[in-house]
């Protein structure tokens, strides 16, 4: 009995702690990733390393009408040589059902560390991009996006 209560406790706490979670419940929306799940996904990518801001630039429109296809460009300052290049770029989001968006693997043969794609955003939120360099350092940039028509909510 006691053990069961212990198991339930953190869930309830999380729910009450996050007003956003309550809102999501009220609106009967699919599960949302929270700051915490995004941080968890980021932690998995960077493990124990330090993340610095700079060198990477995340380009997203500040205001989008349609969250179903939001253009996104990431570029990293790097000479892209065999000794010094961008290895991986990962994109994370705060409020989609899953914190991961995409992970790109580059190398010296990329020539330029720049990737563009189109993503879905379920809500107005912060998007974060982290680049891992060949020397093991991590650099990040974030962008806030206001979405007027969210992805994932429309029916068929």
């Amino acid at each position, binding site marked *: 009995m006691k053990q069961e209560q212990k198991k339930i406790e953190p869930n309830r706490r999380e729910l009450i702690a996050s007003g956003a979670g309550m809102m999501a419940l009220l609106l009967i929306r699919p599960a949302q990733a929270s700051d915490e799940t995004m941080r968890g996904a980021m932690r998995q990518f960077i493990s124990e390393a330090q993340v610095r801001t700079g060198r990477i630039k995340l380009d997203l429109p500040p205001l989008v009408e349609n969250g179903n296809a939001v253009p996104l460009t990431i570029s990293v300052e790097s000479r892209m040589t065999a000794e010094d290049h961008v290895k991986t770029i990962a994109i994370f989001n705060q409020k989609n059902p899953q914190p991961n968006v995409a992970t790109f693997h580059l*190398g010296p043969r990329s020539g330029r560390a720049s990737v563009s794609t189109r993503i879905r*955003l379920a809500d107005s939120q912060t998007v974060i991009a982290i680049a891992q360099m060949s020397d093991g350092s991590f650099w990040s940039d974030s962008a806030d996006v206001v979405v007027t028509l969210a992805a994932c909510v429309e029916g068929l």
Partner: protein
Amino acid sequence: MARALINVPAKAKRGDIVEIKALIAHPMETGYRHDTKGEPIPRDIIKSFVCSYNGEDVFRAELFPALAANPFIAFSIVASESGVLTFSWTDDHDQTEVRTAPITVE
């Protein structure tokens, strides 16, 4: 066979950095939506994309449901030698769609 669009410059100078664009027709069903009867629609997405240049991988991507339908990816490569670029997209059912594009390097 899904429709795919690839944009590779036909000719490039040796050492030039060229932009590659790749798009494939795919719903990228997130698995979070329901149909009109309220039944959940199973997830079906392209989960990985690889571009190889004369057999060597030069660009790779892992995709998640947060990628828009008809996934579009633009990236760049160094035109080092004439040959073939191979693009492959793999979906949740481990089915792979492959396209190739030639490139001439002068």
